[in-house]
């Protein structure tokens, strides 16, 4: 893994070489980014190790802008000559492309400082407007924004980064031992390591961020029924394999002998992993580019109340449970952005390009540029409530029935206009009656519109760091949710 000074050296060398091609008539701007990872993954199934990988990579990308044209090239060759060749190839490529009036000059420190000042001013004006309303919340948000770099830096733990294959095998061994003692079968993954990202440009901007990560997910199979758990944290000591295994074994035993449940609209209790895998389909609709391209389901809805009063969502890289880099693909510091407040669509996220097109300021959410997607809120925090899963189950009384979902699987968008999603339940689906689980049920297919679902939330749990089934590297801070009229359309055979 490269450290900050190694990244700076490579970036400076690449920029210097690029600028050697610059002329007064046709000046060159250069942006260089480097990223790498050594996240190692130990996989097990049927109570033994099946695959064990320790990869390692560093990749350098150069974006050159010249004469209204831009090109991005990448290489894994970090040698001095390799970097020079990359720059020279980018120079050749940029000459061959057509000019595009939308291409912006690279971010400058001055521009970003002005942007930060304007943002603070906006926050203060906003604060003054809401004086007395959400005083404490705004104060906390502004404080967090100032300290974004500090918070992000706390996400590196050398002990986690230095875990060995044998350390991981020992954790896996603990899970297997528990599974064998309980006569069940375990499968899963334990991964650990570090990753980093760095960016610099010819306007003097430079950023570096590194982070450690540990994650453990377990599937337990008991008499054909399955359960699943996942924990993800920047520090391995927060990932407790034995506790996770115990929880998974208990749930798998509870899930044995599932029965058919007729399709229909039910109350549903969604564990946080299910919430994240459903709502992840909504986040790009807050990207300004999705509005410019007329693809978002929230077109012309900024400022309107679209969801229930109890839905408030921010994108907040500084949240203590979040992870990831505090700067975006252009090197701009990520702002804390309120996306939804009490059901009202408040803001979109911007790159510098979308901000220019919509006559506003970037929020620091650009993908690596150039990008057809534009921007993405990557650090979602949904405001939680106080109901535990048990509290939610207690609300199910009388003739009511609810379905408790451990997680959802293979969620896909059916209709982008209504945000209609389909998917399956998986690894522990239960029928709840009279305040408690009464039986496990076979998995169900659902077809649910997110625009409706977020108007149907009747209870929220505390927000926790959670990761979904399809992206353990990108957790979000989300609560469990109890929702009405969750539309199950078909069943399956297990």
């Amino acid at each position, binding site marked *: 893994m490269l450290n900050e000074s190694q990244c700076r050296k490579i970036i400076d060398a690449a920029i210097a070489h690029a600028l050697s091609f610059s002329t007064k008539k046709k000046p060159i701007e250069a942006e260089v980014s480097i990223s790498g990872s050594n*996240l*190692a*993954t*130990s*996989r097990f*199934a*049927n109570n*033994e*190790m*099946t*695959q*064990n*990988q*320790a*990869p*390692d*990579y560093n990749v350098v990308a150069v974006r050159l802008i010249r004469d209204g044209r831009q*090109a*991005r*090239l*990448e*290489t*894994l*060759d970090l040698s001095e000559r390799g970097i020079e060749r990359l720059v020279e*190839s980018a120079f050749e*490529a940029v000459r*061959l492309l057509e000019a*595009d009036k939308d291409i912006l000059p690279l971010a400058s420190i001055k521009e970003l400082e002005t942007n930060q000042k304007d943002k603070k001013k906006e926050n203060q004006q906003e604060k003054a407007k809401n004086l007395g309303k959400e005083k404490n919340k705004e104060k906390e948000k502004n404080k967090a924004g100032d300290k974004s770099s500090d918070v992000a830096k706390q996400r590196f733990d050398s002990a986690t980064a230095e875990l*060995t*294959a044998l350390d*991981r*095998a020992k954790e896996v*061994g603990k899970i*297997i031992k528990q599974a064998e003692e309980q006569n069940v*079968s375990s*499968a899963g*993954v334990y991964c650990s390591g570090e990753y980093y990202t760095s960016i610099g440009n010819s306007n003097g901007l430079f950023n570096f961020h590194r982070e450690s990560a540990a994650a453990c997910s*377990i599937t337990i*199979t008991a008499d054909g029924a*399955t359960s699943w758990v996942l924990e993800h944290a920047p520090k391995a000591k927060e990932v407790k394999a034995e506790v996770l295994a115990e929880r998974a074994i208990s749930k798998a035993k509870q899930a044995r002998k599932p029965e058919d449940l007729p399709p229909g609209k039910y109350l549903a209790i969604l564990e946080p992993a299910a919430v994240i895998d459903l709502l992840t389909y909504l986040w790009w609709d807050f990207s300004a580019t999705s509005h410019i*391209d*007329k693809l978002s389901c929230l077109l012309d809805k900024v400022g309107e109340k679209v969801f229930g009063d109890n839905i408030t969502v921010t994108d907040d890289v500084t949240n203590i449970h979040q992870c990831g880099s505090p700067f975006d693909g252009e090197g701009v510091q990520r702002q804390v952005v309120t996306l939804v407040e009490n059901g009202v669509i408040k803001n979109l996220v911007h790159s510098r390009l979308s901000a220019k097109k919509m006559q506003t300021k970037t929020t620091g959410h650009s993908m690596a540029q*150039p990008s*057809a997607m534009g921007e993405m809120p990557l650090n979602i925090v949904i405001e939680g409530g106080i109901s535990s899963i048990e509290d939610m189950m207690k609300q199910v009384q009388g003739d009511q029935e609810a379905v408790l979902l451990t997680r959802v*699987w*293979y*969620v*896909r968008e*059916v209709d982008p206009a209504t945000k209609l999603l*389909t998917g399956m339940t*998986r690894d522990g689906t239960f029928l709840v009656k009279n305040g408690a689980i009464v039986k496990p049920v076979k*998995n169900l*297919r659902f*077809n649910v519109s997110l625009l409706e679902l977020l108007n149907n939330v009747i209870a929220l749990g505390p927000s926790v760091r959670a990761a979904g089934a399809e992206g*353990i590297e990108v957790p979000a801070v989300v609560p469990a949710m109890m929702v009405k009229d969750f*539309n199950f*359309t*078909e069943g*399956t*055979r297990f």
Partner: protein
Amino acid sequence: MFDLLELALEAAKQFGATYCDARLIEQESELIQTKNLAVALFNRADNIGMGIRVIADGGWGFASTQKLSKKAIIECARRAVEVAKASGTVMKNPVLLAAEPAWNATWISPHLIDPFTVSIDDKLEVLMAAAKTMLSVKGVTLAQGMLQFIRDDKFFANSEGSRVRQTSIRTGCMIEANASNNEDRQRRSYPCAFGQYELAGYEMVQKWDLPGHAEEIANEAVALLTAPLCPQGQVDTIIGSSQLGLQIHESMGHPSELDRALGQEINFAGASFLTPDQRGQLRYGSEIVNLVADATAPGALGSFGFDDEGVAAQCTYLVRSGMFEGYLSSRDTAHLIGLERSGGAMRAESWNFAPIIRMTNISLLPGNSGTLDDLISDTGTGLYMETNKSWSIDSMRYNFQFSTEIAWEIKNGKRGRILKNPSYSGITPVFWNTCDAICQSSEATNWGTPNCGKGQPMQTMWTGHGASPARFRKLTVGIAQS
């Protein structure tokens, strides 16, 4: 390059490996995306590195390096053996490999025009011509295009004496017309959703003629905004070739992966209803359903000379005359179901990943029901659905739901009006048993899927799916909108 691989093999042996293979891959790629009349992305990348996979103390270990110095390769081999020995501490039984001959071979994928020799101007001209045509259709709100080219030069060696070099070129292309209004978002893509990819050179871009199809998809996208909704019910349905390709991928390809069937992927990708005890016993489909895994199909995206553990490409039946017959397998899973040889399906996304069982080209053999027009005529009343829009299937691969970009009503044996938001669902073996007609080979295309995800960490793989349009009786349609 083979001297570097020899160094890795020797070092791994010295550190205690009882088996070792090493892959060195040099890759160059180019991706061009356009949005309306602008270049949204122009990216070129080169990429070289080595992955070393070993068995030591009965367990697997894998490590990789992008540094190809002698010191770095020896260190990488040391790490791979260290990881394998750690695996060995939690193994019930040592890894066993099915026998495979030691190959000494060179393989090059078929191509006529090296895409890296074609000028950027020529490539952009294709995308811009298509974009101009799409944007000339009133109501189109976004026109997008994509070209992608990837060249892999792969060197493989193992401690059993195999030395294989393979060079392949993958080419992909697509255009997409979007039409939006306040209530609706519709799209049409060509040649298929995600783009068509083949193991071919630039000639495939010329063959698919993107500008020549731009007006048609633009008109369809706009027409979909005001089209009636696809109905709900049990309807005789013809599934078009590219949609059927994805249906095969999800409902035959994945469940026939032996690692899934053995529970090795249950934590993420899931398991399979095609358990080993069903082999030769389960009626998977009707008599006319024949599905093969064919890694030898010329020009198809999932073809190769040798897989990533040095097993020669093969063509095997997965389903013959409707009966479930075979699996996609590897050297370390073959013996678990009594096979003497791997089916040759181990593939890795790059040098940086250990290979896992992946699809090759999983194809439905053509039938004798004539052309698509013949089949529409024979159907009388029903639906014809084409081009995937969404896809979802449960973790055992039983219940699926697909939606397509477009459907046409079939009335009086003719293709009628356009219908929007079509979808269909079913249970895999029930669905394939309702297949009563498959079009002839002239209607078949081998569709390349460039984005198949599996494994932890997730690996993306390129697979192929040969299919011609086929009819399914009383298919459940429209339940998504219920």
